[in-house]
């Protein structure tokens, strides 16, 4: 018994010592952290990884150039697997970490929406590089921002574009996600309003590969064009199976379609498809040239979709922190948030400025056509200045 008591006390002491000794480990005083939650694995991993890499590039360049003076910039990264539950967990993780002063938040609208409440409750600024669902910024939380414009804007532009090309009958398919169904509904409303008849509105399941049944039924309704609200994988399969079923209609898609995966999966079938994207056309912009070159040199593959946006989100946080540090203040969450609201950031994608809801004032939408497996710029709408 004596042996056991001594043993018990020794156990306790050891556990406490080791646990608290290392558990209380704080990072060295002169480090400033930015959080990041993106889908590094899961269905959107392709796009998520491009964004992640762009952010890493931004952080490394900032540290190398010593932009924050004596402070070292650190990235705390989390994976949300495009799962809302995981997104909320990771959001709580980063938001409750007092060292994290700002968060680059999520790719999927379905993730950003529930997580936004966490950011609001913890009063930490969050900017998304890609989530486009309008509801996110309509909640009235001052911490929530986005650098891309909403699906409301994008969907309406798409609806107008379709109508302007003379199509009379449109079939709409969506992938039953917050994003896909959301933008499909906007396109439905916008194109109907512009005089196009929407002949069908159906949903498919993400992860499914066989859409012949639904496409055969759509074929029977004789549309002039097909719009799909969803991501590149299902989009590629859809357009491919359309061609195999002898359907020659033009395929229209939103920003979730733009990516090498679409042209890879669909092959020659993807030619002629029209894809919209938020913001001004990147490859046409002089401000983007050095970033695109650097990215390709560092990671060995060209930028496909959201890399520039993620890069600018990181850049905005860096610029804000730089301003605070140069003023001689200690960086805090409140400081970051207030600077964020005032910023006019000249970035890779053009000028970014936030309105009272946290949306970007940059409401340009670009249209691309697929030619020989490449996305070629066609035209853009909205304010294209700067």
């Amino acid at each position, binding site marked *: *018994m004596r042996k*056991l008591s001594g*043993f*018990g006390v020794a*156990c*306790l002491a*050891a*556990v*406490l010592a*080791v*646990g*608290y000794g*290392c*558990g*209380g*480990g704080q990072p060295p005083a002169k480090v400033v952290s930015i959080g990041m939650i993106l889908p*590094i*694995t899961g269905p959107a991993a392709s796009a998520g990884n491009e964004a992640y890499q762009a952010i890493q590039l931004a952080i490394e360049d900032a540290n190398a150039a010593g932009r924050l003076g004596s402070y070292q910039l*650190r990235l*705390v*990264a*989390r*994976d949300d697997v495009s*799962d*809302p*539950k995981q997104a*909320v*967990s990771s959001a*709580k*993780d980063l938001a*409750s*970490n*007092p060292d994290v002063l700002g968060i680059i938040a999520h790719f999927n609208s*379905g993730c950003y*929406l*529930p997580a936004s*409440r966490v950011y609001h*409750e913890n009063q930490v600024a969050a900017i998304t590089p890609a989530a486009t669902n309008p509801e996110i910024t309509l909640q009235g939380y001052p911490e929530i921002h986005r650098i891309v414009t909403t699906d409301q804007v994008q969907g309406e532009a798409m609806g107008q574009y379709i109508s302007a090309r003379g199509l009379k009958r449109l079939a709409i398919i969506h992938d*039953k*996600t*917050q994003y896909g*169904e*959301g933008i499909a509904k906007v396109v439905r409303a916008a194109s109907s309003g512009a005089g196009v008849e929407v002949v069908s509105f159906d*949903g498919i399941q993400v992860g499914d590969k066989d859409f012949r049944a639904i496409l055969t039924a759509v074929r029977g309704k004789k549309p002039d064009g097909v719009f799909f609200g969803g991501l590149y994988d299902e989009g590629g399969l859809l357009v491919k199976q359309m061609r195999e079923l002898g359907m020659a209609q033009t395929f229209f898609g939103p920003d979730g379609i733009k990516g090498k995966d679409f042209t890879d999966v669909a092959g020659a079938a993807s030619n002629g498809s029209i894809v919209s994207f938020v913001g001004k056309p990147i490859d046409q912009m002089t401000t983007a040239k050095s970033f695109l070159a650097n990215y390709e040199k560092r990671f060995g593959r060209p930028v496909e979709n959201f890399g520039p946006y993620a890069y600018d989100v990181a850049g905005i946080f860096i610029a804000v922190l730089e301003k605070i540090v140069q003023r001689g203040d200690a960086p805090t969450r409140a400081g970051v948030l207030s600077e964020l609201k005032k910023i006019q950031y000249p970035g890779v994608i053009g000028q970014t400025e936030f309105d009272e809801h946290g949306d970007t004032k940059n409401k340009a939408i670009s249209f691309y056509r697929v030619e020989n497996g490449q996305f070629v710029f066609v035209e853009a709408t909205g304010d294209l200045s700067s």
Partner: protein
Amino acid sequence: MTPPGLAASRWAVWVLPQIAMVWLVAFLVTPEVQSVRRAADLLPILNLAVLIGGAVWAVRFFLKSDLCRHMMESQDVTPRILAQSVFLAAAVLPVVLCVLEKYYWIHVLAISLIYVLLAISLNIVVGLSGLLVLGFSAFYGIGAYVAAILTTGAGSSPHLIWALLPAAAGLAAGFGLLLGAPTLRLRGDYLAIVTMGFGEIVRIILTNWEGLTRGPISISGVAPFHLAGWSFNRPFSAGPIRLDGDTQYYFLLLLTVAFFVLITHRLSHSRIGRAWVAFREDELAARCYGIDVTRYKLLAFAVAASGAGIAGVYFASLQGFVDPTSFTFLESVLILSMVVLGGMGSLPGCAAAAVILQVLPEKLQMLREYRMLIFGALMIVFMCIRPEGLIPSRRRLRRIREVPVP
């Protein structure tokens, strides 16, 4: 037994769970390894290794010691006292974490408690009654959506949330009977596949019946629990300690789990529980003894489903939103894993496994893309090393010991 042995046993029962709780805190607060710049950056890994290695060694040492033998044999050290001690440790745990300001882990633990509730409920059908159910997340989802739909939208009242607990339990139980009734004749694995189908059908309806559930667009703004005007969402300061929303939910969940553990324990040691075990082992013999298998099967379905329904209400309220992707087949399989990994039919085993299976993936976040790979490997290894589960139920242990090894 000598008086010193008796005193030591009683003392040990109260102290050991507290030591385990301290160990858990140390485990949770160990920081993750970000980038390795100096040798000191590897210290957290060493810390974890020491914690885990030390725990394994300590447990083995303890199991062989005289004290353990005394505790097992003593009539004073009942499961009831042990349970009380464990619940005390569980109640102190979040307070310690609040003092250390590690609120994230309280969130994870609160969610773990929801899964403990789910695992205990599933244990009733799978562990005790031997009915393999693969679509359990359906009942969970029904409870969550009931809470979401009735507390948001036009004409709803947030104060309903308390009333929704029994309402969701009742509705889920009803669905449980709906599933159980036509499947009474089905043999083991056929039942499994039908329940899987049921789970999928419910999920597909939740995803597509937009008029009711808003489909894939999640329902957010689910009401938090209220008590006399105080919303459980708001942080609560008791002196220097700040208890945030998740902590309050944690305590609420702990009370519910305690309640369910009590009910389940009573049930499994009653005539009903014995009937369940009887037809789990041999349905034909049970019928021959006059046990109304039909009635007990339906009862098992109803009780299990109602537990899941209540867990769903808590989940919806804690998260503040519901969407159909939380209730997939994989979710059902995860809950089943908790029951099997914990030791089928064993309450403490299910609870322990539920906590481990929620905490471990979060702790392994530092492995990033290798996380699930290692997790899968660990599952295989664990089952091969210890197929009877973490804490096998006493009945099963007795059975395993009695069967002569060929």
